[in-house]
C-alpha cells in the first residue's frame, strides 16, 4: 500500500462515520482518563511512601516486640536492645553491604536556643539518638562527623578565640573556659514539615526554609529535665545543625553515634555503650530485600518499616482497584467499538466489494478496518490522557488551596511517567483493535460478488 494514500483512505472513512466513532470513543476516553488518573495517583503515593518514608536500599532492624496490654500499661516482654554480637550477625547475612547501629540517648535532655530564628529563646524536652556518620555521608557530606578528636584544652574567654568549629565552654566562669567542638546534629524532614505545617501556625511563627537551618546552634543539657528530675549531673554541650536527613530520628535530634555512646556511658554506666536500639542494614539490591528480611526475622528481630511497606502495598491495591474501573470502562468501550464496526462494515458492504474488485486482498480489507480502529484508539487515548492530565492539575490545585499542609505533602499528587502514558495509550489502541477484529475478519471473508450485489 502507498502510505499517504492509505492514511488518507483511513481518515476519510473515519470522517465519514465520525458520529459513530465519536460515540464509541467516549468510553475509551473515560476509561483511559480514569485509568491514567488513578495509576498516576497510586504511583506517586507509593513513591512517597517507599522513597521518602521508607528508603529503598535500607532496612531498619529492631528487637522483636512482645507487648502485652495490662489495663493502662503495656508490658514489653521482648528484647530491648541489640548488642555487638547481633550487629555482627546482621553483617554476615548474604546481600548485606553494611550495618549501621543506632543508639538512643537513654537519659532525658533539654534543648534551648533558637533566638536568631524565633526572636526569643525556646526550651524543650527533646529525645535524641546517634547514628554512624557514614550512613548519611552521601546526604549531608562531611559536616556530620565524630568530633571526639577535636577536643582540646585551649583556654578561652570568648567563642571567637576557638575558631569556626568550636565554642568557648565555660567562658563566663571565674577561671575561664576551654574550647570545645560543636556537636553536629541532624533533624528529620518530618520535623521541618511538622513545624511548617502545624507548629508555626499555633505560635504565629514564620515558615522556614530547611536549607536556612544549616549552621543553627543551640545548647543541650543531657541528663536534665523539666518534666521529671533525673538525679543526674547534667552535661551541657553546644550543638550545630549539620543537615536535614530522612535517616534522622523523626521527632528529635540525631547525633554522631560516638557522642551518644559517650553520653550514655557517662550518665548511666559503661554497659550502656554496647546497647543499640536498632540497626540500619544497607542492602546490595532491592531484589535481595525479601531474603534479607526473612533472615532478620529468623534471628528473632523484626523490620521496623514494614508498616510503610504495608501502607504502600495497601495504597497500590486501592489504586489498582480504582484503575480496574478504568479498565472495565475500556473493555466496555471495546465492545461498543465492535458493534460500531459491525454496523460500519454492513453499511460499507458494496464498497468493500468494490475494493476487492480492484484488487484488494482479504488481508488488505482487514488491515484497513484494523487501522481505522487503531486511529480511533489513538485519538481517543490521547484525549483520555489529556483529560487525566487536566483532572490531575485540577486535583493538585484543589489540594494546594484546600488541603492543609501535612508531612511530605507533595507539590503534585500524580506521577505521569512516560511509560505509564505509553502503556495506557497502547492499551486504548489494543482495545479498539481487538474490538474491531471480529467485524474486520467478517468483512474480509465476505464474497466480493455478493457484496457488490448488496446481498
Amino acid at each position, binding site marked *: *500500500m502507498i502510505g499517504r494514500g*492509505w492514511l488518507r483512505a483511513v481518515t476519510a472513512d473515519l470522517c465519514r462515520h465520525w458520529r459513530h466513532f465519536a460515540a464509541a470513543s467516549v468510553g475509551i476516553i473515560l476509561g483511559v482518563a480514569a485509568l491514567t488518573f488513578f495509576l498516576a495517583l497510586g504511583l506517586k503515593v507509593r513513591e512517597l511512601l517507599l522513597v521518602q518514608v521508607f528508603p529503598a536500599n535500607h532496612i531498619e532492624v529492631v528487637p522483636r516486640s512482645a507487648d502485652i496490654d495490662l489495663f493502662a500499661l503495656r508490658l514489653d516482654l521482648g528484647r530491648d536492645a541489640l548488642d555487638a554480637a547481633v550487629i555482627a550477625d546482621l553483617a554476615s547475612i548474604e546481600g548485606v553491604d553494611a550495618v549501621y547501629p543506632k543508639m538512643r540517648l537513654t537519659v532525658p535532655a533539654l534543648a534551648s536556643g533558637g533566638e536568631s530564628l524565633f526572636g526569643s529563646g525556646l526550651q524543650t524536652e527533646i529525645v535524641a539518638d546517634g547514628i554512624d556518620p557514614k550512613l548519611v555521608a552521601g546526604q549531608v557530606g562531611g559536616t556530620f562527623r565524630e568530633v571526639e578528636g577535636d577536643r582540646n584544652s585551649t583556654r578561652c574567654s570568648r567563642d571567637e578565640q576557638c575558631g569556626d568549629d568550636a565554642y568557648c565552654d565555660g567562658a563566663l566562669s571565674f577561671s575561664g573556659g576551654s574550647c570545645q567542638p560543636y556537636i553536629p546534629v541532624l533533624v528529620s524532614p518530618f520535623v521541618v514539615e511538622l513545624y511548617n505545617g502545624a507548629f508555626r501556625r499555633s505560635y504565629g511563627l514564620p515558615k522556614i526554609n530547611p536549607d536556612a537551618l544549616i549552621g543553627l546552634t543551640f545548647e543541650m543539657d543531657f541528663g536534665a529535665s523539666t518534666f521529671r528530675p533525673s538525679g543526674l549531673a547534667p552535661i551541657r554541650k553546644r550543638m550545630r545543625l549539620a543537615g536535614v536527613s530522612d535517616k534522622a530520628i523523626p521527632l528529635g535530634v540525631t547525633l554522631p553515634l560516638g557522642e551518644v555512646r559517650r553520653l550514655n556511658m557517662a550518665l548511666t554506666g559503661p554497659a550502656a555503650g554496647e546497647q543499640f536500639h536498632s540497626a540500619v542494614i544497607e542492602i546490595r539490591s532491592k531484589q535481595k530485600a525479601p531474603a534479607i528480611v526473612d533472615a532478620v526475622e529468623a534471628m528473632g528481630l523484626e523490620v521496623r518499616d514494614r508498616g510503610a511497606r504495608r501502607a504502600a502495598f495497601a495504597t497500590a491495591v486501592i489504586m489498582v482497584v480504582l484503575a480496574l474501573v478504568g479498565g472495565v470502562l475500556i473493555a466496555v468501550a471495546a465492545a461498543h467499538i465492535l458493534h460500531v464496526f459491525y454496523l460500519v462494515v454492513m453499511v460499507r458492504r*458494496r*464498497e468493500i466489494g*468494490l475494493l476487492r474488485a*480492484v*484488487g484488494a*486482498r*482479504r488481508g488488505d480489507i482487514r488491515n484497513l478496518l484494523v487501522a481505522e480502529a487503531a486511529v480511533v484508539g489513538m485519538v481517543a487515548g490521547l484525549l483520555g490522557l489529556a483529560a487525566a492530565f487536566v483532572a490531575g492539575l485540577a486535583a493538585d490545585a484543589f489540594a494546594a488551596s484546600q488541603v492543609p499542609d501535612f508531612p511530605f505533602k507533595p507539590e503534585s499528587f500524580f506521577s505521569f511517567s512516560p511509560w505509564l502514558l505509553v502503556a495506557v495509550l497502547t492499551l486504548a489502541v489494543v482495545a479498539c483493535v481487538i474490538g474491531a477484529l471480529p467485524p474486520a475478519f467478517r468483512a474480509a471473508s465476505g464474497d466480493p460478488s455478493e457484496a457488490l450485489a448488496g446481498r
Partner: protein
Amino acid sequence: MIRLEGVRKRYPEADIDVLRGIDLTINAHDFVSIVGRSGSGKTTLLHLIGGLDSTYDGTIEVDGENLRSLEDDELSDLRSRKVGYVFQAYHLLDHLTCRENVSVAALFARGKMRREASRVRRRADELLATVGLEDAGHRSPTTLSGGERQRVALARALFHQPEILLCDEPTGNLDLETGHEIVEMLSEVHRTGEMTIVAATHDEKIAAAGARVLRLREGRFVGSEGGGK
C-alpha cells in the same frame, strides 16, 4: 484470451441455475457484447470471468490461468494486474475525491504495480482528462452527473492498464445520449488501448458497438453475431 468450458452456476438458496453450461472463447483484443434480459446471467458471467465469484462448475481460464487453481489472494492479484470493472451503479466512493477514486487500486497494488504517490496522481489526472473530466480531480463524485460518474468509473477501471475490461450494463443508469457517449468512449478505449472488452447489456443499440454479439437467455447462449462461438 478468455476460455470458459461447461461453466454452470447455481444459487442454491434461491434454487436457481443462473448459468447452465457456458462454453465461450474470447480472443485477446476482442470487443464482445453479451446481450440478455435482467436475470439472464450476464452479471454472474462477468463476475466469474473476473474471479470475483469462485463457486461454479466447469473451467474458466484467463490468459492461460485456470481460475479454479488460484487462491483468493492470487485472484485478487489477477484482478489488480489484468482486469478492470465498470459497473452499472458506478460504485464510486463518495467520501473520496474523483482523483482518489480513479487511483483507489493503487492502495492495494503490489510489486511492479506499485507506483510513487506523484506518479499515481499524474496517472489519475491523465485518465480523467482522457474521459473529459480534467477539472474534476479534486471534486467529490456526489457533485457529478450520472454520465460523469460513469466516466470517472471508466477512468478507475483503466488506471492499472488492464488487459481485460469487464463492463456490466455500463449505460444502464444513463439516458440514451449519455449512454452513447460512454459507448463511444469504450470503443475508443478498445481501439487505442488494445484491450479485450466484454460488455454486458440489455440494450441492442449499445450491443452493436461490439464486434461480436452473444445472446444469453436463461443461462445459455442462444445466438451469436459477428463470428466465433
